[in-house]
């Protein structure tokens, strides 16, 4: 490791080399597919070939010695994957609810033979009519703020628009996978995951065993973005059942096509907005309704919808609201977590809506949006309060300055111009929505000092590229005033680390880091002791009160804010969008490492922008049509333009060094910003993302704005 002369930094934001760069650059970092265990068997999944129905009969050929099938009847515990609802089986027994639903494993030493056996298995189905229309609502939410719908009776006029967002596939570079073995009676699993304890608890339920009979270890993870939040629990349960049955080490690796076809994606959404306008062209209130497609089971969809609905006023304060939403079940691949978790869908809709209202009223849209920008002390959509300072005005001024926004808007007004520039305002609620952190997770961390004076961070947080193996160590090193080389953060292993909660919801630095920070402070006081462990558990600050059922109160303890400016050129012949430049300004409280935050900013923005114009995934009768990296288009280096990011400091009292969440914020604003830029270039309204060339071609048939 390159040694660093960093004893303690005057300013923690100052970048240092990431601890794991060297291994990754040299190709030595071990991902799950790199782990080979002697005598390892291979498991491949047999999946349904229909979208809806029942299994009538399965004909399995005679299996050679050493080859097995594993199915629902082998599940030693409960045949349900522990997520929230009991609607996802480990292996389906009979019912088929989506194409490629897992039915069983074929396991054996030679993968070619396993594939042969798989192809010889004959499944007879009773086919039922699948439902692809969004008509079966599994969850409905509704809440109000202020006078709710009543303001609509006072309205001078009502403006209404509908917006639509598509699937987005996480497309992490490392496909999903696990490898595991039996250690005595203990099932040990290595997996490409975000949440070791989600996996452990799910496996415990599937096997029906005690806590000490399951061990989950994280190897290097090649990207996740939410796609490895809950989905891996399904794979882990299946694999654990197989390992317990066959009593041999087994590897379960998805290849890209399988991964794209069967793992969770961002929920497609349809969002309806209505605004009541008074005679002074001011907003009285909104009525918003959001529908999302959960796919074949609910999973986390209720939480995704919650976050989306809470975000329904975007970066603005609107006094009167009637907000509702539905989670629909369809016979398609179940959808799940993806960076932003409902917010990207809603921020696209609300940003476009504010712009479209202004257009309708003949008002300058920037002035209009600035007028309603949220301020410190304002009530949130759920009657919580924005307690902490909001510095969006400064950030917007900065964003406009570095991008030369106003001049470019003027320049691009010309009908000959095929360029456009757009600016989005957004926030991200950091941490779990509502009371999850306090009531369900109750995160625990441990900090251990050993005889040699090394300090071990013992948490279940997963570094999937966002750099927590560096940033959490910085926090400890800074507080304890010891060289960072003496702070050790090994890969989480549930045998050694407490449940600090899942690596999701932009909570790791703020919550887990916050606990680590408190633990470090205590350790500092006790530093004289030779060897000891400090343990801390999450305690919700008193003032955060939220009722999950009525959606009332402070949904989040803190908010990070952002401004994205995107400049594009739209080809007049091909309608293709070329990204020219982007400028971003972020308030993440305090950056624990500037370069790491810039990296998250770049990556998140490109994902957000691509969500807005490039990434197309659709299904036809339940069949995902873009199922490999050839057909699912994500940006290459050639698709990027110049990127500039500015980080503002606005410390949050309860985050370590003032840090709030970063991970998801940087994806939220990209889609509306690029959609605005496209609108500016083509002088037509955009209602749907991805705003593909095909869609732009259709829009060009409309009248100009």
């Amino acid at each position, binding site marked *: 490791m390159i040694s660093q002369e960093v004893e303690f930094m005057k300013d923690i934001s100052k970048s240092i080399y990431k601890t794991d760069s060297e291994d990754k650059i040299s190709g030595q970092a071990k991902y799950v597919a790199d782990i080979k265990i002697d005598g390892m068997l291979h498991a491949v999944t047999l999946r349904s070939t229909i979208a809806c129905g029942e299994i009538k009969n399965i004909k399995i050929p005679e299996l050679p010695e050493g080859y097995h099938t594993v199915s629902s009847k082998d599940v030693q515990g409960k045949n349900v994957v522990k997520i929230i609802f009991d609607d996802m089986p480990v292996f389906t027994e009979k019912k088929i609810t989506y194409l490629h639903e897992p039915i069983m494993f074929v396991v054996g030493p030679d*993968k070619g033979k396993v*594939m042969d056996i798989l192809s010889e298995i004959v499944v007879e189905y009773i086919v039922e009519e699948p439902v692809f229309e969004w008509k079966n609502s599994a969850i409905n939410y509704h809440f109000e703020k202020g006078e709710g719908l009543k303001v609509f009776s006072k309205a001078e006029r009502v403006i209404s628009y509908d917006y639509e967002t598509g699937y987005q596939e996480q497309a992490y570079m490392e496909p999903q996978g696990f490898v595991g073995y039996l250690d005595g009676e203990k099932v040990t699993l290595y997996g490409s995951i975000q949440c070791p304890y989600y996996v452990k608890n799910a496996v415990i339920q599937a096997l029906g065993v005690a806590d000490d009979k399951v061990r989950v270890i994280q190897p290097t993870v090649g990207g996740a973005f939410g796609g490895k939040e809950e989905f891996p629990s399904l794979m882990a349960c299946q694999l654990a059942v197989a390992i317990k049955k066959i009593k041999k080490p087994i590897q379960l690796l998805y290849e890209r096509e399988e991964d794209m076809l069967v793992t969770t994606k961002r929920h497609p959404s349809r969002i309806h907005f209505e605004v009541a306008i008074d005679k002074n062209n001011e907003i009285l209130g909104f009525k918003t309704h959001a529908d999302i497609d959960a796919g074949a089971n609910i999973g986390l969809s209720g939480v995704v919808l919650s976050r989306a609905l809470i975000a329904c006023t975007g970066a603005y304060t609107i006094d009167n609201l009637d907000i509702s939403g539905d989670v629909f079940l369809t016979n398609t691949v179940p959808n799940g977590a993806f960076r932003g978790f409902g917010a990207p869908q809603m921020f696209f809709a609300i940003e476009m809506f504010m712009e479209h209202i202004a257009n309708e009223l003949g008002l300058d849209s920037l002035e209009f949006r600035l007028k309603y920008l949220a301020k410190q002390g304002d009530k949130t959509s759920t009657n919580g309060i924005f307690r902490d300072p909001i510095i969006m005005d400064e950030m917007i001024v900065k964003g406009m300055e570095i991008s030369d926004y106003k001049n470019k808007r003027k320049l691009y007004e010309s009908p000959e111009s095929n360029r456009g520039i757009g600016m989005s305002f957004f926030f991200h609620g950091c941490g779990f929505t509502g009371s999850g952190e306090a009531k369900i997770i109750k995160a625990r961390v441990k900090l251990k000092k050993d005889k040699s004076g090394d300090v071990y961070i013992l948490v279940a947080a997963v570094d999937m590229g966002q750099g927590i193996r560096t940033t959490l160590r910085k926090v400890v090193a800074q507080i304890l005033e010891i060289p960072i080389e003496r702070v050790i953060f090994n890969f989480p292993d549930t045998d050694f680390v407490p449940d600090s909660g899942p690596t999701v919801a932009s909570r790791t630095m703020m919550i887990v880091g916050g606990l680590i920070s408190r633990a470090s402070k205590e350790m500092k006081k006790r530093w004289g002791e030779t060897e000891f462990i400090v343990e801390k558990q999450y305690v919700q600050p008193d003032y955060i009160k939220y009722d999950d059922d009525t959606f009332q109160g402070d949904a989040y303890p803190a908010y990070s804010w952002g401004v994205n400016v995107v400049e594009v050129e739209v080809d007049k012949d*091909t309608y293709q969008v070329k990204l020219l430049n982007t400028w971003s300004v972020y308030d993440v409280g305090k950056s624990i490492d500037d370069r790491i935050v810039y990296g998250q900013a770049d990556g998140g923005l490109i994902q957000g922008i691509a969500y807005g114009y490039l990434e*197309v995934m659709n299904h036809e009768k339940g069949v995902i*049509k873009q199922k490999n990296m*050839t057909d699912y288009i994500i940006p290459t280096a050639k698709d990027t333009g110049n990127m500039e990011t500015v980080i503002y400091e606005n410390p949050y009292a309860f985050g370590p060094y003032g840090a709030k969440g970063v991970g998801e914020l940087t994806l939220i604003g990209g889609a509306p910003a690029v959609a605005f830029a496209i609108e500016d270039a083509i002088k037509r309204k955009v209602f749907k993302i991805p705003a593909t060339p095909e869609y732009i071609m259709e829009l060009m048939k409309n009248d100009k704005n």
Partner: protein
Amino acid sequence: MVKTSIPKNLAEALSVLSKEKYRLVAGGTDMLVQNRNRATLPIKYKDNVMYIANLEELFGITEDEETIYIGACEPLEAILENDLTPKLLKETILEMASPAIRHTGTLGGNIGNASPAGDSLVPLYLLNAVIEVKSETETRRLRIQDFIQGVRKIDLADNELITKIIISKTEFTKAYFKKVGPRLSDAISKLSFAGAITFDNDIILDLRFAFGAVNITVVRRPEIECLYIRKTKEELKASVNEIVEAYSKFIRPIDDQRSNKEYRKKVSINLLKSFIEEL
């Protein structure tokens, strides 16, 4: 039992082919993906396979006074870097795939694959490329439009392989290739367009258009082009709607996971129109 052959030279290759049918693999960038198996398992070929990428006789780019000869297994990136390569073909290759694929992909492979979305085929049709194929006993040369007969259908006998791509040296006043893919690189085309024109004092001496991925093979209609030879640039511009209508019936794209027929058709027409209008 599937046989594998790795001939050491062209003569050996042709001798083996004279006795039995073999599927030919050059760089492998198409073949290995099309015949993919599960990771770690050998590629699943249904027939015999012959690897021809290392046959020296199939490399190199040479010229004589009027013609350029490109070896069928010369890698695309090498063709891109060679001074002898026509500019239009260079521009096309630069838009294709990625450096890694260009280092092993070959023109012979692209032509043999005869995909309707094959980018390199478009400039080859426009340049009136001739494909040379050899068997143990015979050498044949066919125009590319005769060699490629349909989707993945070529006039290649079981005992033959593609040896050279032959292009007459041509200088155009203006030649242009536009690939329209879902992103700016490393993607299969939704459609592509090539246009070339030569004029002298405003009189058109040569006019060529080719469209890719909008029909089962590249669309090249010399009978439309020749109507405008010896006309003036202005007359050509004035006839743009006529030309568009003439090509319209040959531009017959499909809907698929990448795009739809309306887009492919409209954009092909847009590109054709712009090429003419911007002369």
